[in-house]
């Protein structure tokens, strides 16, 4: 049953060193604030699962929180590479990063299987691809009716999933609208699910067949307005395309990255302090132009 907590409390209570952690959100509703808080609390040896590692995992990897990454596409959308991810894979900095690589269809099915309580997913995939040669967890099953050989992949069942959503009601029921990605499946596949939300409202006013996660299926709901920045929250704010571009020079080398997280993340008490500091820095940059 969801408790309404601060994000700090939720991370303290539910995220442990060594956990398998999924922060999901498919370009929309990416739980950035949660990634910051995990860095602030200095979690270590995490196995990170996410279809599109994006800036949130560039952050966690560069900050030394991760020992392994399970993913299917790692880039800075519309900009280019994830510099910290590449540095970890190519040069082992700040520590070697084991990678377990899949395709989107595979991971999406693996989340569905995880939510369904199944140990594996079946899909028509990978024939002719080299990915099974480098990922021994891509195996096969034979259809007992047709004899067709299909791909079998392990389901994703994180210790903790964190997602961001538009709103929750006072009981902790959560409504997600717009691009849904794999958030519902990631939430239901996990032992614990933390949801950061833009706001808590009296009545969700959810359409009858909307994507609602009932409070009793969640561990914590944390109000964090703006918590998906620089991605967007449909109906609340737009994607901060500028930030995705600004990220590239910050993350390009180790020194500028470390200075940035020391300053903006480790040097702020919480996401709201981060937002204030970031706002001041941008204002200063504008004035300097």
């Amino acid at each position, binding site marked *: 049953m969801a408790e309404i907590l601060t994000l700090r409390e939720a991370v303290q209570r539910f995220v442990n060193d060594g956990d398998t952690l999924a922060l999901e959100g498919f*370009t929309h509703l990416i739980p950035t604030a949660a990634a910051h808080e995990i860095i602030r609390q200095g979690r270590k040896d995490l196995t990170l699962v996410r279809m599109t590692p994006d800036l949130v995992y560039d952050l966690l990897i560069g900050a030394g929180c991760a020992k392994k990454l399970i993913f299917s596409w790692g880039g800075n959308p519309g900009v*280019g590479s994830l510099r910290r991810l590449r540095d970890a894979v190519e040069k082992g900095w700040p520590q070697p990063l084991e990678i377990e690589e899949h395709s989107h269809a595979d991971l999406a*099915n693996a989340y569905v299987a995880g939510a369904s309580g199944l140990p594996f997913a079946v899909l028509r995939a990978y024939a002719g691809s080299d*990915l099974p040669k480098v990922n021994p967890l891509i195996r096969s099953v034979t259809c007992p009716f047709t004899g067709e050989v299909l791909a079998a992949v392990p389901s994703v069942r994180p210790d903790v999933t964190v997602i961001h959503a538009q709103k929750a009601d006072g009981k902790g029921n959560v409504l997600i609208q717009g*691009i849904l990605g794999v958030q519902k499946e990631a939430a239901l596949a996990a032992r614990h699910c933390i949801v950061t939300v833009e706001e808590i409202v009296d009545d969700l006013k959810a359409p009858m067949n909307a994507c609602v996660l009932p409070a009793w299926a969640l561990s914590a709901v944390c109000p964090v307005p703006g918590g998906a920045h620089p991605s967007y929250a449909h109906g609340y704010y737009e994607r901060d395309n500028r930030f995705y571009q600004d990220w590239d020079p910050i993350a390009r080398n180790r020194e500028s990255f470390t200075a940035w997280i020391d300053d903006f993340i480790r040097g702020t008490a919480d996401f709201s302090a981060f937002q204030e500091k970031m706002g001041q820095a941008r204002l200063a940059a504008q004035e300097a132009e």
Partner: protein
Amino acid sequence: MMNYSTNEMMTVAAARRLGNDSVCFVGIGLPSKAANLARLTHAPDVVLIYESGPIGAKPSVLPLSIGDGELAETADTVVPTGEIFRYWLQGGRIDVGFLGAAQVDKYGNINTTVIGDYHQPKVRLPGAGGAPEIAGSAKKVLIILKQSHRTFVDKLAFITSVGHGEGGDHRRQLGLPGAGPVAIITDLCIMEPEAGTNEFVVTSLHPGVTREQVVENTGWAIRFADKVAVTEAPNETELTALRELEARTAAAHGQAGGEE
């Protein structure tokens, strides 16, 4: 006739391959630009599906990410990503998979994973994304990318998404449901698989492009079809629609729709 860039020629040539009423699974970047140009010109009823969930998206500006809000707002419906891959792609409902690539080989196989050894990479690329299963299950595949010695290579370091495999009927032997890539559209030419071998050969040169240019910018011993056409230059309608789309995109995002 209006002047145009080679990139514009590439986008226009790619857009023309999309029929009206076809259902198209769109990758971000060049494929998305070409598919939306088709929708804004000769194919107003083309159905665009993005892996993030929108079905029937009709964006007025190009998305920067595969899940921009504009895609959701203009779609007929927005479904979970798992459903996109399960019911719509694997379910056999995609006519055309429209893919970009970091590298391609003569059989239309695609590498978006790594340059060099997988475990000791020279360059770590973004990875597979949706491409392996789009390449496998879409009824046919179009590939769009800029041509160069580094992108059109003799031997891929890694096959992320299969085209015609080792050529001939290898793809069929692999049991893949879709027909595989039917064209590679570049800034220089159009290549199509040769009957029998399924090796990509040049079937149309863009206006002003020489065979030598194509040979220089291809990492394998590229061959030319018996009859090589000259691609029709972009017409005013196409160019105007493309430039307006790009202008709207720049105004909305403060940057062009991602080329990557």
